[in-house]
């Protein structure tokens, strides 16, 4: 690893030298790139951007704006139908991701492409392990791995198996892997999606460190505040086209938001509303379960939306899954005064509970199945035979009332955007007439507009009498949408806040510290 450090140091000298001369060549340039998929889907129309040496360049865009496609093209995983890539001013034709890596473009996907069963060091040098006489040189690999981990300030040893690391440490491992390939540009696709704010701070300091060493970062995110914190410049993509590139420092938030969504649309705002007066729907006297789950005196009324905030691993998901009968618990929970202890999701569903799971694609939807079938899965249990016409007649009005955009309800749900997919999952429980809705990170991967839509829907459902629990790592959203916010910490519900009284920063602090400061 020492060798590559020296190289990087050299490069930095070159870079600073060049920019001093006023002729710094951009590391990676994308010129008018387009991508068409058969039969006639235009995923990317005209995308351009340019990453300077040693900068954090952000890529911002709504779902379906073409970000993923552009990333894949830059990483060599896809070939553009039109346009070209330039690496340090020279045209670059990539035929595979490994060519991209060899050229110095390293991609860190959102679902980190690490092999969980292998150790950190094996993952770091996957595909380019140092060899001697054709055999893996384990000692050199260990040394180089230690060096790479040291540069990112990792505290775990290289012989740890990746599956035993936290998501944040896996993220760091992925970054370290980019360093072992002497990457000039590291592309990070929404690294924050699975990280809590504290972990994210850590990743940011690693990014700042790397930039100082001359590496460029292309940082993809939905979240404006992150971009403002870490970015030098930001390119906005909308509908497959580059809208513009802005200097982060001098650009007001409203300008960026407008560029992303194409019209003036406010971020999720908190509206004044009447206090909840419904009877108690769900009362958790005490509930203990796996992963240190220990919930006490949790109360949810009809018509109420309660938010669950807290760091990752604070027990939000476990709590929701326990209520939904997917995780066993002991204790005393009541639904409308009657004991609630579902042994399976099926039982919880019969009792009127519905869960929108954390991972839409793996837990929520049957991606290749038609939209109406996805929306009517729980509803099916009420009969023995199926009339597809009746299922469609049942599903379509509900999907329409959620303003889901689709061509035909017979199309595969895979073809929908993230926000519309999430509406299909939500429609499932509305069709099933669930009265207690448990939403686990419902806005993950949705753009600003889709998020606002989603929370407006949740509000409407609550106003119609449903009781809703929303778990989210984005406090902003909870703050705007919920009647009350519980902060979870290490499996316990530590503090209840009222967003109409309590300050947002107070709640944020409590989630990090584990209680009211």
């Amino acid at each position, binding site marked *: 690893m020492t060798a590559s450090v020296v190289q990087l140091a050299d490069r930095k000298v070159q870079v600073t030298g060049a920019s001093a001369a006023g002729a710094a060549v951009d590391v990676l340039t994308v010129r008018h790139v387009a991508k068409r*998929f*058969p*039969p006639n*889907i*235009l*995923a990317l129309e005209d995308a351009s951007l340019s990453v300077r040496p040693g900068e954090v360049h952000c890529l911002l865009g*709504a*779902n*379906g*704006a*073409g970000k993923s496609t552009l990333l894949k093209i830059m990483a060599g995983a896809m070939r553009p139908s039109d346009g070209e890539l330039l690496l340090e001013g020279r045209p670059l034709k990539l035929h595979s991701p490994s060519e991209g890596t060899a050229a110095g473009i390293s991609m860190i996907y959102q679902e980190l492409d690490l092999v969980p069963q292998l150790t950190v060091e094996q993952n770091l040098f996957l595909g380019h392990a140092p060899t001697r006489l054709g055999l893996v040189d384990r000692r050199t690999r260990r040394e180089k791995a230690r060096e790479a981990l040291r540069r990112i300030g990792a505290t775990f040893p290289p012989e740890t198996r990746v599956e035993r690391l936290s998501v944040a440490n896996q993220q760091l491992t992925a970054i370290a892997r980019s360093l072992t390939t002497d990457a000039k540009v590291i592309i990070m696709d929404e690294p924050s999606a699975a990280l809590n704010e504290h972990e994210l701070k850590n990743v940011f300091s690693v990014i700042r460190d790397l930039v100082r060493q001359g590496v460029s970062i292309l940082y993809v995110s939905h979240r404006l505040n992150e971009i403002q914190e870490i970015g030098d410049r930001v390119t906005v993509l909308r*509908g*497959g086209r580059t809208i513009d590139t802005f200097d982060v420092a001098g650009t007001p938030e409203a300008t960026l938001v407008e560029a992303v969504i194409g019209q003036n649309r406010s971020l999720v705002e908190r509206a004044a509303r009447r206090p909840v007066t419904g009877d108690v729907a769900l009362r958790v006297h005490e509930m203990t379960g796996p992963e240190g789950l220990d919930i006490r005196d949790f109360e949810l009324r009809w018509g109420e939306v309660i938010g669950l905030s807290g760091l990752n691993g604070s027990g939000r998901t476990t709590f929701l899954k326990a209520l*939904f009968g*997917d995780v066993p618990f002991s204790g005393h929970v009541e639904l409308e005064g009657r004991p609630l202890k579902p042994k*399976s*999701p*099926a039982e*919880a*569903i*019969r009792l009127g509970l519905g*869960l929108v*799971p954390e991972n839409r694609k*793996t*837990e*929520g*939807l*049957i*991606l*290749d*199945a038609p939209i109406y*079938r996805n929306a009517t*899965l*729980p509803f*099916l*249990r009420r*009969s*023995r*035979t*199926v*009339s597809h016409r009746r299922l469609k007649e049942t599903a379509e009005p509900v999907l329409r009332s959620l303003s889901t*955009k*689709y*061509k*035909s309800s017979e199309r*595969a749900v*895979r*073809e*929908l*955007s993230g*926000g*519309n997919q999430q509406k299909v999952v939500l429609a*499932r429980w509305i069709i099933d007439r669930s009265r207690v809705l448990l939403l686990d990170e419902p806005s993950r991967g949705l753009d600003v507009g889709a998020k606002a839509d989603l929370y407006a829907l949740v509000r409407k459902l609550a106003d119609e009498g449903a009781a809703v629990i929303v778990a989210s790592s984005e406090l902003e959203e909870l703050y705007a949408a919920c009647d009350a916010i519980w902060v979870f910490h290490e499996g316990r519900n530590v503090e209840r806040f009222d967003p109409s009284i309590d300050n947002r920063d107070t709640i944020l602090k409590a989630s990090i510290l584990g209680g009211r400061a």
Partner: protein
Amino acid sequence: MLASDSGIPAAATPRRSVGSTVFDLLVEYNFIVIFFVVVAVATSLSGNFLTWGNIANLFQQATVVGIAAVGMTFVILTANIDLSVGSMTALSGMVAALMMSKGVDPFLAVLMTLVVTTGFGALMGGISAFAKVPSFIVTLAGLVSFRGLTYLISEGTPISGLPKGFGAFGSTLVPVAPGYELPLMGVIFVAICIVAGLVLRYTVFGEYVYATGGNAEAARLSGLPTRLVVVAVFAASGLMAGIGGLLLTSRLRIGQPTAAQGLELDAIAAVVLGGTSLFGGRGGVLGTFFAVMLLQVLRNIFNLLGLGSFYQMTVTGVIIIAAILLNRLIDYRMGRD
């Protein structure tokens, strides 16, 4: 993908032309097109092919594999696999033959045999679903054990001396139109296909089979009894293998311990050739039916041309690969990469 995001309303999309709808149907049901192409080629190669006697023969020969393939379709739709159907077919025939040779009433013997094979199927499904063992392993064990059991109860020798009525069953011809007769076996095969197709399309159980195979976790979190669905499809596969075994024994008029070796591979090949995805959630019985008949036509035409089974095996393999590649191409073009 793009359209739904950029907010193009549904009404703005142009109406699809009749031509493109027909094209889509041809793509969707490409196995039927392939089947008739092969039939046309067969007809031009041999004048004996398109005779009613030969067609009746095709149905007679396709039945045992075909019925097993119907059960296999259910299993594969849930993203599982059943390697035991060959052994199960042999076991079924042997159990029935043994009972009848010992003087058990044929009707009762048939009923008990089907209970046994369905039970064994359910047992394998249960082990796979509840102990979370891949069905590949459980049914591989079944393949070995059921064959062993067949040898054990028959002491390795064929069992003869079956009641006349039972033997007649396999050679009965049923008039399907004035002057045209099909073997009863073939009629049973077609009937089973129709029933299975209706079950998949018009029952909640059928929906559950597709949902479990499409995404078991999503199905479970929607309250579907996914493990019971898996048990049920293996029970169905056992039942189908049982029926196939009974028909085979009836046609051979003996219980043959070595019967139906490698049948599971023919059945799997037919299901996959018929467009059912090995990853589950996509496909159906219609494809399986045509694929079974297609493989039978291939075998038949080689026989009519006097080419040996070595040619048959080689060409069959090539055809399977070609058909799968075609389906991958279609998947790719429809964005299901």
